[in-house]
């Protein structure tokens, strides 16, 4: 159990900057996830923490003492690798026992501890199997048990769930959270799956091109992303181009209409900005209802319906600001979530007006071209 601090970590490989100026402290017993697109430096940061890479600058501190110069085998950190990395010549039991054998624990104690861990991860029936005789989920459990067996002060998990199917992934992530909470191990989990990050973390570190974009609780990051990058990366999000009309009054402007939007007071007058609204925040309204300064309105034609279970996501095309027919087609696509039971009211081809309720949107500076490129490169984009 330990407090982990990373101070000003930077690392480059040749010309490639993998991590730059990374500062983070992880509290005792906290679970923090690194979330970011492929190649943003998540693994590199984790490997520096574990001691497999030496940072160009910066230091790694555990419980107040610096470990930057220590070799990996003297850091007491447990790591689970991106592809399990089980020893192929050992059974599940021997794999779990490895760290205890290195530490020369008495055989009876080892056996007891291994049995306990095999039980904790539901692995009793594959204890005698070699890695190639186990399913991906089982191998992943063995890798976790092996890392935890030696009671590491810090647990580092590099995309531990990326190689298992969706159902097992959900099971395992709940299991990891439960186990981590029970044992109170300070944990860093790397992922590029935002659902995973949001569901099990105490805090999420959003990374982009080697730097921390922002750090916050899942709820805060989801509700109030502070950067365009985070907004685009986490959850489904409508991004509507606007312009800051009055910084002092907190107003933005679009298609000749002005309306209040949280965040506008932090941007300069006249700045290009993005109004962020979650699909589930938009409220379907009667076409006749008028827009107001507090409650801007958008209107479009239902193009596609996608069923998400409890809700139906409607994708609107030809979207304009305002309830009336005037104005240009300014927004290519707008996602609106409605209860599945009510979706029958808006079949494909019908017109739908939606309001942006007070306090459900947020304004941030428009992203730079480079940021935009990074977001669209991301695999499996959930951005709308």
């Amino acid at each position, binding site marked *: 159990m330990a407090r982990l601090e990373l101070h000003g970590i930077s690392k480059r490989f040749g010309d490639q900057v993998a991590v730059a100026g990374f500062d983070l402290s992880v509290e005792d017993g906290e679970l923090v996830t690194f979330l970011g697109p492929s190649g943003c430096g998540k693994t590199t940061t984790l490997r520096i923490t574990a001691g*497999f890479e030496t940072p160009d600058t910066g230091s790694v501190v555990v419980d107040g003492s610096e470990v930057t110069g220590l070799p990996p085998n003297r850091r007491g950190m447990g790591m689970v690798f991106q592809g399990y*990395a089980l*020893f*192929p*010549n050992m059974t599940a039991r021997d794999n779990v026992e490895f760290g205890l054998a290195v530490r020369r624990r008495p055989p009876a104690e080892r056996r007891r501890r291994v049995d306990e861990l095999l039980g904790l991860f539901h692995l009793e029936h594959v204890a005698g199997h*070699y890695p190639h005789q186990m399913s991906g989920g089982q191998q992943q459990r063995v890798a976790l048990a092996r890392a935890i067996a*030696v009671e590491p002060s810090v647990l580092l998990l590099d995309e531990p769930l990326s190689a298992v199917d969706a159902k097992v992934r959900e099971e395992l992530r709940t299991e990891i959270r439960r186990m981590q909470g029970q044992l109170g191990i300070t944990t860093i989990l790397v992922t590029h799956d935002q659902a995973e990050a949001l569901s099990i973390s105490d805090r999420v570190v959003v990374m982009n091109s080697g730097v921390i974009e922002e750090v916050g609780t899942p709820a805060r990051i989801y509700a109030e992303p502070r950067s365009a990058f985070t907004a685009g990366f986490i959850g489904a999000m409508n991004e509507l181009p606007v312009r800051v009309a009055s910084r002092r009054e907190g107003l933005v402007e679009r298609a000749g209409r002005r309306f209040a939007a949280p965040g506008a007071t932090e941007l300069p007058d006249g700045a290009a900005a993005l109004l962020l609204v979650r699909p589930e925040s938009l409220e379907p309204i009667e076409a006749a209802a008028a827009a107001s300064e507090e409650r801007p309105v958008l209107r479009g034609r239902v193009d596609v319906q996608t069923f998400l279970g409890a809700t139906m996501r409607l994708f609107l095309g030809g979207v304009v600001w305002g309830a009336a027919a005037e104005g240009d087609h300014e927004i290519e696509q707008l996602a609106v979530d409605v209860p599945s039971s009510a979706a029958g009211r808006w079949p494909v081809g019908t017109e739908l007006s939606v309001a942006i309720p007070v306090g459900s949107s947020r304004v941030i500076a428009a992203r730079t071209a480079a940021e935009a490129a990074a977001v669209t490169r991301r695999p499996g984009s959930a951005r709308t």
Partner: protein
Amino acid sequence: MNATTRSAQRAPTRRRGALVWLALLPFGLAILLFLLLPTLSLVWGSFHLRDGSFSPANYTFLLSPDQIRPFQNSVLLSASTMLVGGICGLVIGQALLSSGSLLVRELGVTFSSVAANFAGVPLAFAFIATLGVAGLVTRFLAGLGIDLYGAGFTLYSMVGLATVYAYFQLPLMVLLILPALQAMRREWREAAENLGAGRWYYLRRVAIPILLPSVIASMLLLFANAFGAYATAYALTTGFLAIVPIEISNVISGDVNFDPGQGDVLAIGLAFIMAICVVGQVWLQRRTSRWMQR
């Protein structure tokens, strides 16, 4: 209804089985013509004396001190070049991978493929031209004050022959072991280190157990390779060095001691030792694959 579906399923399976056997026919024929028949003829011949009479006497010949010597020499030659070539090949193979440079690795593999197949008269000549009495290297070293032949070295001895064999044994080892070395994942070492293991502990508990079967299997092939080699040794020593393949050629082509029956017996001894190597190799490969196959 069950019975009909089952027989309906079985028919195509049986036809497929027949096709497989048909496809294997050429291979079976080759085995018959080039392995089984020659072996039978060897066995047949080994039980017949020069005058054509049936007798197991040739086998007592095999056990005579005169004939034990070629076997001793051959085993010594094969074992020493197996060990030297095997260990150096292993180290060089690992070095090629550790260099981290694709170019270096490709060059290493290409050179190894060429060198491993460079044998017989050309190889013998190359060595005579470099390490022979008047060879380039010999003369160069003499210029530096190192007198190879004066120090007791001669290319036309067992040590000389072993040096020449090492030339193809080493690169052969590189080629044989590279796939196994390549299959070692960096994460295994890192996982071991992460769990507190030092370098030696990792080697002892992870790397060596994983690699050992492949290393031994490859070395057995080196042994067999050296044991059966004939052309290189003959070209270098023109037949006076007593190793098994040369002894065989002596008794079947010589004027004085022409005795095909004895040649057959020697060949059976040679085949026997080779068979042990191959069986050992296959067994070890099986053992590895028990936990290596993904």
